[in-house]
């Protein structure tokens, strides 16, 4: 009788799905410090009643927090959108339909990521210039 404790190793040629599989695991682990720190500070310690435009501008005047938020944006949103792609494949089986959904999600990811990244990089500078 074979037991499930015997692990069979198989060499897999890297392809998109293989990279995406690894991405979900590594980005997921990176998101434990990134997302949890973000939630701990913003939702629990500071709280939504203490957050306003000034708070965000001050935060983004710091290069350290800009880098933190860019990393959080990059890891969290790409993790989430690829997760949605995987869930959608449970319901969509045709190769053509899967391709269309993947491209749609990719464009959505690109546009929203760009919006977030531009705001993180430019908001503080823009605000200072307008003072």
């Amino acid at each position, binding site marked *: 009788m074979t037991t499930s*404790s015997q692990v069979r190793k198989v060499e897999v040629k890297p392809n998109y799905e293989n990279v995406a599989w690894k991405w979900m695991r590594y980005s997921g682990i990176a998101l434990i410090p990134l997302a949890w720190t973000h939630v701990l500070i913003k939702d629990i310690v500071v709280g*939504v009643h203490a957050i306003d435009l000034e708070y965000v501008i001050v935060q983004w005047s710091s290069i350290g927090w800009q880098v933190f938020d860019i990393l959080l944006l990059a890891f969290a*949103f790409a993790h989430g959108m690829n997760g949605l792609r995987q869930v959608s494949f449970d319901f969509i089986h045709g190769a053509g339909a899967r391709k269309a959904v993947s491209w749609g999600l990719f464009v959505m990811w690109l546009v929203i990521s760009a919006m977030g990244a531009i705001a993180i990089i430019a908001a503080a500078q823009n605000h200072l210039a307008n003072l």
Partner: protein
Amino acid sequence: MTSLVDSFRTTMRGYLTYRGREGHLAFLLHRLTGLGTLLFLIIHIVDTSFVYFAPHLYAETIELYRSTPFMIGEIFLVFSVIYHGVNGVRIAVVDMWLPHKWTLTAQKNWTRWAVLITIVLWLPAAFIMFRSMLVHNFGFGG
């Protein structure tokens, strides 16, 4: 179109009627918390980008987040982020470093631990957020 509806029904029936106990529930909760967090994340990235693109609108969206329904939603959001993280670490660690732990008995235990750790981390966070809601939205003394 019929095939799309059939496919949806078949997949949903599988999701709901598969009787895999801990593993099944962990899977469903992982999906729900992931999709819920993503839905919020999309809205959150866009509204936060208003700080640059439409600063005058940012105050209005923050006002929405301060409302009671959103603060209750926030408590569930934090649950989702904690559970998805703890359960995700379980999956990642076993997949990548401890594949011999992919056994039914081991993962039943790991899943129970994941839920327990989630609740232990979530309760104090939920308490603080609920208290903040009572103080700010219902005038309880801070």
